[in-house]
């Protein structure tokens, strides 16, 4: 198991190098140039000379392979370079936003999983009853209502009832936990609804499948209490496929909340992404893509390892 984990971690390296090659060269293919946007973006007229000088300063005039090589060497020493726009280190730029995005993602996961497990379970156990229909309607809603729109509804309700508007600045949890939680619980709910819908439906269908398994019949034939049949025999098996969904949804929340962040006035990774793309801020985009890719690969590894923990049939012996 340990050897397997090490193997998998080592395998992350070629995967990430692949991502690095792709993102680096794809960015260079896309039209648009940061220096142009920076110096001529607001309509100002700048001489070609100035532009060339700026390009030279940023190192954009060097051959592509040299640039790529420098970037790779930098990453190997954990130096992701500086943002071409703000000139601050990429790591600093991302770190401030990541804190917020990560917290929203974790809170949304909590909300979603805590609601999804009882909802999915009840729907499956009382299949075709009013409980099941209620859960099915709720979850269909979660899948079809865009998170940002639901977020807007939440905002409008809060505004109407409590005259509350999201604060302009982000308060970290270690500074003022209450202010932090009141700020982030709403976006977490807004995205958690969709998340919860996906997971609840997954649990419902996998529990329905498990309840038809022969070993459930065996457990009942042994005279096991019905509650124990469900919690010990059925749910544990049914939650396995849900792990995958939870993991993948979680990683999505790190980088994919562009509009919801806008609605709640949050300065998260999604916003930063949009900003840096519109500015063609190569180093920052590259840094963020690498971060999200690493996240995906890592979460996938965690999912696989969790499977091995919960399912004794899966043993990775490299």
């Amino acid at each position, binding site marked *: 198991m340990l*050897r*397997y984990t090490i*193997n998998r971690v080592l395998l992350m390296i070629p995967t990430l190098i692949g991502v690095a090659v792709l993102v680096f060269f794809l960015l260079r293919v896309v039209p648009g140039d940061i220096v142009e946007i920076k110096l001529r973006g607001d309509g100002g007229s700048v001489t070609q000379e100035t532009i060339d000088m700026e390009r030279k300063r940023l190192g954009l005039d060097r051959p592509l392979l040299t640039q790529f090589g420098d970037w790779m060497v930098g990453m190997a020493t954990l130096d992701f370079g500086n943002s071409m726009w703000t000139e601050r280190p990429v790591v600093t730029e991302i770190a401030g936003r990541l804190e917020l995005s990560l917290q929203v993602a974790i809170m949304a996961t909590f909300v979603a999983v805590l609601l999804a497990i009882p909802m999915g379970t009840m729907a499956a156990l009382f*299949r*075709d009853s009013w409980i099941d229909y209620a859960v099915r309607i709720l979850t269909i809603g979660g899948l079809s209502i865009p998170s940002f729109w639901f977020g807007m509804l939440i905002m409008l309700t809060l505004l109407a009832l409590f005259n509350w508007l999201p604060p302009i600045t982000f308060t970290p949890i270690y500074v003022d936990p209450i202010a932090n939680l009141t700020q982030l619980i709403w976006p977490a709910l807004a995205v958690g609804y969709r998340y919860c819908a996906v997971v609840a439906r997954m649990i419902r269908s996998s529990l329905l499948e498990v309840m038809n*398994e*022969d*070993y459930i*019949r*065996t*457990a*009942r*034939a*042994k*005279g*096991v*209490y*019905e509650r*124990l049949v469900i919690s*010990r*025999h059925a749910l*544990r*098996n049914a939650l396995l496929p849900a792990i995958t969904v939870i993991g993948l949804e979680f990683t999505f929340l790190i980088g994919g909340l562009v509009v919801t962040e806008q609605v709640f006035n949050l300065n998260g990774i999604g916003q930063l992404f949009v900003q840096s793309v519109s500015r063609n801020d190569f180093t920052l985009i590259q840094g963020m893509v690498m971060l999200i890719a690493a996240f995906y690969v890592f979460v996938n590894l965690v999912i696989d390892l969790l499977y091995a923990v*919960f*399912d*004794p*049939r899966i043993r*990775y*012996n*490299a």
Partner: protein
Amino acid sequence: MSVADTSDDLRALRDARPEVAAPLLEVDDLHTQFATARGIVRAVEGVSFTVDRGEVVAIVGESGSGKSVTALSIMRLLPRLTGKIPKGRIMFDGRSLLDLDDEQMRQIRGRDISMIFQEPMTSLNPILTIGLQIKEPLQIHLGMTDKEAQDRSIELLQLVGITDPERRLDQYPHQFSGGMRQRVMIAIGLACNPKLIIADEPTTALDVTIQAQILELMKNLSRQLDIALIIITHNLGVVARYADRVLVMYAARVAEQGAAEAVFHDPRHPYSMGLLRSVPRLDRPRGGKLETIEGLPPNLADASTACRFAPRCPFRIAVCDQEPPLFVTDTGSLSRCHRHEEIASGKITWSAAGGAGLNFAANTTAPVLSVRNLTKNFAAAGGLRSSAGTVRAVQDVSFDIYPGETLGLVGESGCGKTTVGRLILRLEEPTSGEIHFEGVNLSTASPAELKAMRRKVQVIFQDPYSSLNPRMTVGQIIGEPLHVYKIVDGRGQVEARVAELLENVGLRPEMAERYPHQLSGGQRQRVGIARALAMEPSFIVCDEAVSALDVSIQGQIINLLEELQRKFKLAFLFIAHDLAVVRHISARVVVMYFGRIMEVADRDTIYGGSLHPYTRVLLDAAPVPDPSIEKQREPRLIKGELPSHLAPPTGCVFSTRCPQVSQECREVVPPLEEKRPGHFAACIKV
């Protein structure tokens, strides 16, 4: 003629036996129904029987006859939403089970009545340890502490013959073989010293040597501990060996019930008669054609007041439009047939088998297929790059098959018989060895030669449910190879050919429009055969082609295969685990064990005068459907299980289980030698 209300009859029967007090279980006029999209399916109709303490009662019948549903009704484990028991009474140990509430019923399940299911592979929870699963009923029903339950579990595992129980308790189901899992299931069933165990097809998924071990174990335990046993099975041999009394079920009703001897020797219902005659038997000389019960079982969604068996019954008369009651017959058994007296007096008998035996072509011609020193190794699954070892699936296998001949290939699961079939079909590449088809060496054949060979070598698979594409009509399935190989031209031609092929396999041409799910198992297998025939092959690999079918349908398919063989001069490699079926259909038989050939001889020699100890053990383990023979013979049990492919035995592969083993056997691999003319065996002792 003694006609009586069913339950009165049973009571009369019971009162006639003076030594018996109230029976342990009394099922009276049980009706079970399922609500389905196609309407109400009457899965059990008016079934009544009793089980005494310590008695072994068998329920036999084909799939859909209602035997498993009867068991689930007793356990009250029917699907909650769809299953209903509208009528009937089940008395167990003085209590009416149908009147208990869920909690009272739960307390009976696992404590007073246990159930053992068919599929040992799926009946245990894969993510819980064996220990927890055995301890569960002990702690729930008997309130044992963890320590007490642990001790009792160890005791139970020892009782069912699992060695090293302390360590085994911490393992998970996937670490056990099928036979071992079934032992664990039995241990769970025995845990609380129940009064009744219901075993639903307990050995159907197991090999014949393991089947004998498990059944013997259950029988002994039931004797020792005075536990009543209901065995549900379709295997008449199992019934004959183990049951005191038999219920024969057909289409949701009891067709006949009585003492095992009476039902087997003097069946008084045409269905039981037909069933007993349609199984190939090891204890009787092989006849020509197998007798079959023509037609298909009725659809249980259609209510009927006629005799359920009438549409398939050769003795049908006008009165059969009326549902017959259960009559008490001359042998003391109960029969649901108006003409049971005529059957008893011998006035009507099942017609003698028609058709002569197969004429085997003399082996003077060149073989259509010859296999020489065939070996196939698989890398055992390991980690990312490393492999855990080599599985020698097939080792040094050689045989010939002549035109128009059937070569039987028997062995237990994992013996390599299916791999041999796949190697011949070129679905796998052999590691070494040669396969010659019609004189062409397939490993050096040109692509054109291979293509020609693929057309002439066809296959019929085991599972008629999963081997046909569900989205294609029967016509498309059969017609596809005709297009691919351009065997006939034009649409009309293809349709005509498909119709002809369907006729060849006994299906109506209209079937071409249907989809596989609209067909019964037997019909699907016929479609599979028609598809193989479409290529005009000269050789067909039948891989367990009839094992998934019910007894009466199995006979129909075997007869069809033999008929087609004669008509089209086909050669068959008939791969199967059922010794009686192989004996019936084969001219010569190859016995395989753990990748190697143990014995090759013509059929009568194998079944009459086998030399190899493994063949003998195999034949011994297979029960024959005759209670008198079965109850007399002392079962010679084969010990142990198949060795692991990761630690194969040295010397003879059978040495770990052989009753005649000596030191020498563990050292030398015995060569396959011609011990007598045409009779080869791989054993140094003979």
